[in-house]
């Protein structure tokens, strides 16, 4: 799949898989979603940002929805305290987003690199 439309389609599908996984408790689906993006887009310069973005959306969107529904301020402060970062509620928010981002990113990178490795070399 080539071009910006491919990028968008891969991103949307990957993010949707990631969000669905997060919602049903299968959080690890973000990684296969990244793999899917990597295999689909091939080129690392497209696949890796798309995978990272899909992971970020996959974990960030449910968090944003929760913030809208019940508010996350007190929970973020409490989690920060548990993590040893009292007074810095942004820490667990960032940590959560980073986990999603890295799962998507590494999935896409691995698939992209594997596809590149399997492709015939050109001289």
């Amino acid at each position: 799949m080539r071009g910006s439309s491919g990028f968008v389609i891969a991103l949307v599908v990957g993010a949707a898989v990631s969000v669905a996984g997060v919602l049903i408790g299968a959080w690890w689906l973000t990684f296969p979603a990244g793999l899917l993006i990597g295999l689909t887009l091939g080129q690392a310069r497209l696949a890796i940002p798309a995978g990272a973005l899909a992971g970020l959306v996959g974990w960030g969107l449910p968090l944003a929805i929760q913030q809208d529904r019940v508010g996350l301020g007190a929970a973020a402060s409490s989690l920060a305290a548990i993590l040893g970062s009292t007074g810095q509620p942004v820490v667990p928010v960032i940590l959560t987003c980073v986990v999603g981002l890295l799962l998507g990113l590494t999935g896409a990178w691995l698939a992209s690199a594997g596809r590149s490795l399997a492709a015939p070399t050109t001289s």
Partner: protein
Amino acid sequence: MRSFNFFAALIAAAAVLYASFAGAGPLPALGPAFNPSTGAWTMAADAAAVKSETLTIGGLQQPVRVTFEKDGTAHVVAQTDADLFLAVGYVHARFRLFQMDLMRRQGEGRLSEVVGKAAVDSDTFELQLGLLRTAQLEWSQADEVTRVALASYARGVNDRIDEAKRVNQLPVMFTLLGYQPQPWTPIDTLIVKGDMTQTLNFTDTPLVMELLDKSLGPELTASWFPVLPPNAQSPYDPGPYPGHTTVGPITAMRAVTDSEAATALALHDRLAALPPGLLATGGESNNWAVAGSKSASGGALLAGDPHLHLTLPSIWFQLTEDSPDYHTSGVSIPGTPVVLIGHNQHIGWSLTDAQNQQTFFYEEKEDGAHPNQYFWKGAWQTYTSVSYDIPVLSGQTKHLTVKLSTHGPVISARGLTTSVWWAGNVPSQDFEVLMRIGQASAFQGFRDALRDWHSPTHNFVYADDAGNIGMISAGYYPLVAKGQPWLPMPGTGDYDVTGTVPYDDIPQVYNPPDGIVWSANQRQVGPDYPYYIGTTSNFFDPGYRANEIHRVLSQDGKLSAADMMALQTDTRDFLASEITPVLLNALAGDALTSTELKARDLLTNWDFHMDTSSAAASIWWTFWEAYLAATFDPWWKSRNVMVDRAESTSTNANTQLNDSLGQDLEAWTLGDPTNPAFKLSGSAQNAQDVMRAAFHTAASSLGTTLGADPATWTWGRIHTRQLENLAQVAGLNYGPRADRGDGNTVLAAPDFPSAHGPSWRMVVDWGTHTFSGIYPGGQSENPASVWYENRVDMWWSGLYAPMLSAEEGASSPGAATWAMQP
């Protein structure tokens, strides 16, 4: 290049997946822990305000109504007793499941399974001591009413566990620690009761006495740590007593051998290294009652404030329980189905720890020719043994075999084999007793119920709607055949625990002529009491709170509920009121610096209240600590005493030792100022010499730490209090914050910072039928909940909330109701 890229990607992906599935360093498995929909973030939804709704609860026979007041107080109204306890189980688990799981794991020796090898020592000790064996025995002996109550309660807890798993709302600590709670059982409830018994009654004092005996010598040890307190006391039961004596005075202290001392030291050090709460380190609770004849309202008054480790969440959960047979209101311990302290329609009750000796150590006689045997009553007996597996997170399962002699479990095989007889291992059907108390309508029913209460020994205060008051120090008072129970004793059978003080002979009063009863962990009886119940080093309080309570209640005039509340938050230091005038007298002829003169003037004008704004309070406390040190540290040094005198950083430090010595020092200062104990302190000849030196030391110390002007040495600058998060997350503590009181005041606040004190304050006025209570904390263990610490500020300010009935609660502003359907 492509290969390098691929392997780099592979390594990065492996690292991310590993951290996500298994965690990294101190972080939990990141994936399940931070998944926004099912991980730790679900605490946000769980923290949302309770709203009125209909719940379907398995196991209910009839609909149940649970109403929550705006502050979280729960009112459970059921149509059957079984439904009542089931609903209470559900409610407890809804708000305190992790706390409950932690408590059962502690007592059952299963903490290592979820926190790793750091808890192996604790688990090993708990399984040796035998809370699990005792709970199993109690369950097998429980009557039908108790069995129904505990089984129903367990069903309610399990209903909530299943629901929480289904909707992904397990408490956050389960998520972060990466495990799920197992089903609750009635044994777990009995274990929670055992935890409380242990924290209040399991002591190492005979070991401490043995070490003191070895280093200070029998004569000084007997003199400084006597059976009868050397200072003036206020026993609530002054007699007359039955006229026979079972144990001789402590002047019969025997000499201790090297091997005995080495054994005691090893075991003492092992116990001191255990986590806080496994060893009783003193108690500071108050309760009292005033008869209708002495009350402004004409009805009896009752006040109770049990002092415990102050945690978030609190040990207490406030509720009312209504069913055909029960109408109780007060506080319960999550994990247990009944109101422990509170009132019903006719009587009110509260508890303080009775502090009598509950732990006895025995040195078993063994011989290499008789392996796995001990000599008892003229013959070799084979140890019974019980085996356990202790699962350890990220480690190998530890196999443990516990040997049991006739005295109890062997808890040390280093040096002399030592077993322990602990009253907490005597089966005690406390829940049956508490249910009968909940149904009692007069003193006879209350007293009859307490006949079956064995442990932990408690001073139960009583007041009823007919104006009557009483106090019973219910529980097991072990009697030994002979010997010196304040030291470890030979296990040959001649010194065994043979029974308990008869129920009619234990400390108790009913409607005393002066119209007041009171307890504050002091020795309950006077010097003529014919039974041995413990020494001054066995956690009987020095008596300053009891003396102060007695002083206030004995004053002329009628007393009101407001007076009860004022007394519960009283910061007048009785010891300071006795000693300060003597100190000022000693300073009269002394050469003082200008700073010392100002400090002396502050003491001269002091009202003996340990308030945060009082500079005199700091001077007094620092002086007293210096006075203790100047008197006793030379002895500790010269005799190479093996037990710390002063409070140390150890969580299990024997602070009672200092309290015992304080009683001696108080008595000598007031009545024996030339006691030889003073002569080891430099060139001092008497108490006045040491007091002057201690005052100079105190002024110098405060000047160094707080500045040159004594007027600025306020108590709040050095004395703070904090409420500690139960999971030991420092960021979820409350405080530390400057606070009033000290270890001797009715509003107790020992230690720096203080994390121990009034865990619940309750005042009952039967004349006006008003009931008030407050505890520091909130109903929810979820730190994101508005009910996590919403009561702290009221408690801190000395305010109370009305304890409403279920009907009043349902109509209170902001109330929400769960309609529970079968």
